[in-house]
């Protein structure tokens, strides 16, 4: 490699290779260092290209990227793009403080995985599985297919454009994104969509039916379920969801709540209440 082209070594092909290698990023996940080996694995081609002839610097860079790393999977290409740009800068400019590379990585991990989880687990997946499950329940094989399509279009777009956008951002300034409030706004918007869909699905997919019919002598009966339905249909599922949410907030383990619901179902059925 000639010294002339040092300022611009990373080309689009390298970014595409980051995009592909990011798929394997979580493969060597461990409880303590999490996705660290994967991050080093994914960024390797860039490091090799930049430091290829200097074994010592390559080792240094490899170690740097073997530090603890964890993120929502789909957000990693974006971080890889930023890191690629910073490594390029570090390679070209001897005064560059390499510690800032990991500092940026760590700074991005928290907010990005928060945003990523909201978007991918909390919004896209919910919409996808909500639509998929309701079709599947009617015996329509489009259900699982639509689920995958709805979820994966944003998934792959974010991965593909993430790495390129990250690289561009890394070469200019990262602060604009973090401090501009754009990430917060986007997260809130995603949460709004997710919550609206969750609200709808509480009504369409949770069902609590009270079978109890109170009998007051001769023909005077009281159907408990119809009273609740008169107040507002599906009010019981809504109440149940919020009750469980309260329990979770108080630190009750989800497993115990699940056991509780199953016991409630069996006992309720046994006494004819549910």
């Amino acid at each position, binding site marked *: 490699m000639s010294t002339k082209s040092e300022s611009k070594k990373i080309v689009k092909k390298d970014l595409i290779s980051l995009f592909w290698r990011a798929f394997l990023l*979580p493969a060597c996940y461990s409880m303590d260092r999490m996705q660290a*080996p994967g991050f080093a694995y994914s960024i390797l081609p860039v490091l090799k290209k930049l430091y290829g002839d200097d074994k010592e610097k390559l080792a240094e860079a490899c170690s740097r990227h073997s530090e603890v790393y964890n993120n929502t999977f*789909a957000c990693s290409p974006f971080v890889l793009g930023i890191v690629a740009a910073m490594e390029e800068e570090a390679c070209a400019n001897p005064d560059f403080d390499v510690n800032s590379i990991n500092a940026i990585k760590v700074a991005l991990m928290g907010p990005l995985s928060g945003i990523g989880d*909201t978007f991918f687990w909390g919004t896209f997946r919910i919409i996808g599985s909500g639509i998929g499950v309701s079709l599947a329940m009617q015996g329509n094989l489009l259900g699982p297919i639509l689920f995958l399509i709805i979820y994966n279009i944003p998934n792959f777009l974010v991965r593909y454009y993430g790495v390129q956008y990250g690289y561009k951002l890394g070469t200019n300034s990262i602060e604009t994104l973090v401090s501009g409030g754009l990430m*917060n*706004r986007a997260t809130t918007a995603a949460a709004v969509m997710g919550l609206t869909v969750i609200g709808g699905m509480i009504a369409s997919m*949770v069902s609590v039916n009270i079978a109890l019919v109170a009998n007051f002598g001769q023909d005077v009966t009281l159907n408990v379920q119809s009273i609740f339905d008169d107040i507002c249909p599906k009010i019981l599922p809504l109440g149940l969801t919020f009750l*469980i949410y309260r329990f979770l907030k108080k630190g009750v383990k*989800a497993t115990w709540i699940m056991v509780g619901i*199953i016991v409630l179902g069996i006992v309720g059925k046994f006494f004819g209440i549910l």
Partner: protein
Amino acid sequence: MLLKAFLVALVAGLCKIDNRIFGMTMIQRPLIVGTLVGFIYGDPVAGMMFGAQFELLSMGLVGIGAHSGMPEITLGSALCTAFTLGSGTGMEVALTLALPISAFGTTIGYLTWVPLNHILSERSKKAAEVADTRTMEICQWLGLFNYFFFPFLVVLVGMLAGAPLFEMLIEVIPEFITSGISVASSMLPALGFALLMQLIYTRKLAPYLFIGFVAVALVGLSNVGVAIVGGILAILVFNNSETQSKEVSVDVNEI
């Protein structure tokens, strides 16, 4: 039987590495796993419908950092779909067993791929210190292999040993228990939604949840309809938050 067991185990193994090489496409979710196992048993629709039931139950069980001890629902749904399709009955029982079996899968994980990948992770770090890039790459691929191989093995053994046990089990369980479980399983999605709310719900955003609820409970909108309404609301919120972006933020620490 042996061929089916092998194929089910293969599906489970491949769906399990969804996060590890396919980029988290959600083929790990019960709806997809159930459908694929259904194909093996020649009845994709039945497999899909079981998968859909389990998908609802496990709605809130997601692969987020804080939930790292979560049940291995991919393994559980593969096994239980196979059990219920293989025996042609016992959907409620299979549905109930799916979560304990998934939880057991997590235990197996702690004994196999978790410690093994820990060793690989350490090895990779050592290799990085001397710029041994080849070893780093091998560690990464071996990690992937662990994630595939052990779930594959667990499901294979589970298929061979579990199916006869399962058929015995549905004979002995009294009717009120299975129907009680079926009542419970229609309530269980509430837990899933509550778990999700932990992720994104704040008091400030509560009205949006109620809009969604009312749209379905009172107006009778479909899930697609609610998703569209949610999308419109999201755009409105995004556009209107321009000036006051600092005030509305989701508390990441609440997860």
